[in-house]
């Protein structure tokens, strides 16, 4: 929104269209990134259930990847991934 006298258009209070959080790329805040090893994944869906940003991508009940545009790197997915599967590790941004 422009700050050039745009207040004049705001006579009905703050109301915006639905679904705008898709355009808000929370992934830009990230300092650590989850790296998913689909070879190890047992598709228990715990990471999908716990991810606070709905960033675990799934199809037909199976994990297929991570939406890094919205993943903000909290590490919850890595923490809930069963230790024996150990399919997600957190890696500092800027490292492969």
């Amino acid at each position, binding site marked *: 929104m422009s700050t050039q006298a745009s207040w004049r258009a*705001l006579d009905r209070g*703050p*109301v915006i*269209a639905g679904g705008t959080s898709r355009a808000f790329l929370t992934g830009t805040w990230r300092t650590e990134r989850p790296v998913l090893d689909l070879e190890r994944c047992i598709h228990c869906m715990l990471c999908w259930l716990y991810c606070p940003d709905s960033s675990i991508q799934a199809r037909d009940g199976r994990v297929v990847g991570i939406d890094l545009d919205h993943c903000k790197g909290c590490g919850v997915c890595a923490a809930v991934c069963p230790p024996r599967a150990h399919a997600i590790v957190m890696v500092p941004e800027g490292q492969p």
Partner: protein
Amino acid sequence: MSVLAPTRRLGLTGNDAVALAWKQINPDVVAAYPITPSTQVVEKFSQYVADGVVQTQFVPVESEHSALSACVGAAACGARVMTATSSQGLALMHEILYIAAGLRLPIVMAVANRALSAPINIHGDHSDAMGSRDSGWLQLYAKDVQDAYDLTILAVRVAERARLPVMVGLDGFTLSHSLEVVDVYGDDAVRAFVGPGPDDHYHFLDSPEPITIGPLALPDSYMDFRRALAEAVARSAEIIAREAAAFREHFGRSLPVFVEPVAMEAARAAVVLMGSYAGVVEEAVLRWREAGRAVGLVRPVVFRPFPAEALRAALAGVEHVVVMERADTLSTLGGPLGVELRAALYGAVRRPVVTDVIFGLGGRELREEDLEQVGRLVEEAPGGVRYLGTGDGV
């Protein structure tokens, strides 16, 4: 008088009058939690709901915070919404007051004005609503039960046209519980005046076209919303004047806006006073006038937006003003009305001396000898801040 408005004369307490106005308005939603001295508004109105004489969805909640939250949700869906509260209840609503105003929701709230704790006290003063004065709500103050009834009806149109929430203050017990004779308009006349409801529904529950109400606003937009809100409050003055004129046209009764002057012709001094004690002080002022003293009374009916221009005009020829008010800012500068009146008069060509008199906190009565002291202050024009009725003189 409008043919639509055959009036009846009824003996009503302030709370009964507000509940009756609500019944005639027939709002979509009332969410409320009872608290003294506004309890009977909700009690009486829930009886109307139970009897099926209104179509209102009544939401009994567990606290005032929830009451106003439910009102915000309903108003955001485009419903016409009312609630009532007092004192600690209004204080508990504080967080949501700002949200209601910031979302520009036309909620109407009756505030049976009462003191704040501690110590706990159930009696009347203006401290509760004065704590909400920077929230963006418009504030109207009744002088008598008729006023409480009329201003409640007026508030609906003002709120919906200004897209701002409105509080109607009636002094705890002295108005909320006192029986007075009130001219009551016909149900049809009231409904014709308030019309069908807010015109720009937000369609909150329209799933094919979902919206977000009250999203995060970062530094690039938050201040623009606040600027728009400030402008809306400023512009509401015009709307109040227009709607009061429409009220007069429709019901044949004049509502004083923004201030009601009494005996101000050629007055050299004036008492400024809001709320129910205006009647008593009016008696005193008229006696002083008979005794040859050029004293008048100016009663602000509107406190938000602050009626600076109307006060400047009403007090133009006056050398001394005694502000009598039932709240304190504890800033050492006096009560909120006195502080703001001084600010409003600062730019005047001739500035009267303002003496701020705080009285009637927690329901302390105003006695004959107190009025004599006020008369002396009017005469002597000492300025500063005084406390009346605490035994050590003013």
